[in-house]
């Protein structure tokens, strides 16, 4: 190697292979190449397969007529609507059940989680039993139970369970009066908006006054009163421009009113009950994570239990609770896809189910469905990360 007459001190032979930079590049190149090759082969196989089976490709199917009805739709939809409309109806149904589920599950989960920590032995034990039962039974089984056992076994419309005020419960769903608005109803809406604006300013005024004089103001009760009185005044002034269309039995079914279909009720009920059991554990762990000394210090300063919870415990517990709570929100949204097992027309049921069966365009449909869930996941994570950051900022 060295042709010089005066040999240099022996330098260990440097192989490129031992250069970490090169090795890293080499590995990455291999993995990338393998991934690309894998992708290409899948693409090739798929296109061959699609051709031999005569399956169309592309998104043209979205503008073809679907030809099937959907029992629950929040946008106009008929059998003549397109697959694109089917997609939208399914998406909206998924969002409706998930959003309602998240709100209700959070309320129930917080209640059960706090009950789990109650000083009342019976309440604490009941909460513990609730948690252990409902989180250890598969969600699908719970959905089946509510749907096939409870809601499907309700009496037929003719023998409906009747409640005061025009509510009926039968195996076709839960019927309730629907509001019908007449001229002047917009005034009531404006009154509600005005009430909220007023409350906002009262809250600001109350906070400012407390800053300045220390006097506290019962913002909550005053807001409540405003929220009731203002719309009521508007209603009286306009002569109650709102009537209720009560459902009535005609033939074998009810006409008029609103209906919550049993599929929706069963899915929502089981999602809420199941997810709340996990949320309760999250809430309990969060509150328990705040050291007992914090409560004692607050009490020793003369703070009341309510103020202690609001000013000392919750701000600290929330930082622990929010990240796992976010993943429960995501789980609930993803679990709403079990709708397909009881034919609630969510995105998976009407799009990845019926539409896929009719068109056979598996690639496009599954990709679109997955993309929807991925976007929802990313959106919820982003919002919660932002919120979490703003809460965490308070500390440092």
């Amino acid at each position, binding site marked *: 190697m060295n042709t010089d007459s005066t040999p240099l001190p022996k330098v260990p032979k440097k192989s490129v292979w031992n250069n970490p930079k090169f090795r890293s590049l080499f590995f990455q190149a291999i993995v990338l190449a393998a991934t690309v090759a894998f992708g290409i082969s899948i693409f090739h196989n798929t296109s061959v397969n699609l051709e031999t089976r005569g399956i169309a490709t592309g998104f043209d199917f979205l503008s073809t007529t679907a030809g099937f009805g959907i029992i629950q739709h929040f946008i106009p939809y008929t059998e003549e609507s397109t697959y694109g409309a089917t997609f939208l109806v399914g998406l909206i149904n998924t969002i409706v059940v998930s959003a309602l589920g998240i709100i209700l599950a959070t309320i129930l989960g917080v209640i059960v989680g706090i009950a789990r920590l109650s000083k009342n032995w019976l309440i604490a034990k009941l909460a513990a039993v609730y948690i252990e039962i409902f989180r250890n039974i598969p969600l699908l089984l719970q959905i089946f139970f509510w749907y096939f056992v409870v809601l499907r076994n309700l009496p037929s419309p003719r023998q409906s369970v009747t409640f005061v005020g025009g509510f009926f419960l039968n195996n076709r769903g839960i019927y309730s009066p629907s509001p019908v608005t007449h001229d002047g109803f917009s005034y009531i809406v404006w009154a509600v908006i005005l009430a909220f604006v007023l409350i906002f300013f009262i809250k600001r005024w109350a906070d400012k006054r407390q800053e300045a004089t*220390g006097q506290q103001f019962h913002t909550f009760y005053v807001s409540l009163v405003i929220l009731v009185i203002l719309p009521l005044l508007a209603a009286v002034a306009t002569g109650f421009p709102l009537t209720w269309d009560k459902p009535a039995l005609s033939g074998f079914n009810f006409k008029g009113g609103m209906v919550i279909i049993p599929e929706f009720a069963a899915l929502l009920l089981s999602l809420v009950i199941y997810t709340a059991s996990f949320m309760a554990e999250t809430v309990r762990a969060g509150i328990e994570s705040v050291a007992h000394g914090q409560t004692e*210090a607050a009490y020793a*300063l*003369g703070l009341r239990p309510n103020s202690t919870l609001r000013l000392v415990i919750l701000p600290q517990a929330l930082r622990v609770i929010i990240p796992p709570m976010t993943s429960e929100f995501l789980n609930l949204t993803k679990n709403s896809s079990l709708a397909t097992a009881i034919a609630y027309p969510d995105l998976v049921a009407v799009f990845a189910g019926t539409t896929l069966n009719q068109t056979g365009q598996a690639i496009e449909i599954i990709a679109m469905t997955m993309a929807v869930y991925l976007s929802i996941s990313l959106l919820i994570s982003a919002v919660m990360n932002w919120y979490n950051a703003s809460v965490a900022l308070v500390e*440092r």
Partner: protein
Amino acid sequence: MTEQAAAEKGLAVSDEVMIDIRNMHKWYGQFHVLKDINITVKKGERIVVCGPSGSGKSTMIRCINRLEEHQKGQIIVQGVELTSDLKQIEAIRREVGMVFQHFNLFPHLTVLENCALAPIWVRKMPRAEAEEIGMKYLERVKIPEQAKKYPGQLSGGQQQRVAIARSLCMSPNVMLFDEPTSALDPEMIKEVLDTMIELAEEGMTMIVVTHEMGFAKTVANRVIFMDEGQIIEEEEPETFFEHPKNDRTKLFLSQILAH
């Protein structure tokens, strides 16, 4: 500060009774933790409570602001008897300040917010005024420059001084100290003790659970020794340290002063 200096300052004790504990008993389940406790604390008195761990001394002072519930006997604070009536408990807690072994500062609030929290929400003061009081007491404990920091950014000694300032902001008539220096590194103990000594000089009524015998000698006008849930000996500091009557007290003193 020396004993002489303390004497010169003339730490006056008035005849007004601040805390009166009569035949108080407490049980944890079947376990009899506090047995027939009788203590009378007059305004301006500085009482040091010592004793081996598990002797019930912490439990005893925690009964005074009802962080623990007693089952028998009476505790009367400024003429008001402690019962399970929430209004009375709140009234007493407003007048009695407490400093804990582990500081128990609120980590999500700044030092100043820690101080202003109770004046705002309990005394219903304007924020500006509450913060002014907070700053006043932070200056008193000599850390006004830390006001905007969070507790986690301070040393143990600084945190305990903030805790003292936080209690003082409620202008209590009595201060309870539950082993305020036990969780501190040795070099930080002095700064906290100095703060407490200054407080005593200003005439604050104090009950201090501590093993700091130097503090007891200089500041206390009475030392209470507890063991196995009862008061074993109650003496003026000189008598207590020079001529303890009880064998158990002698043993304890020999152990604690050997350090």
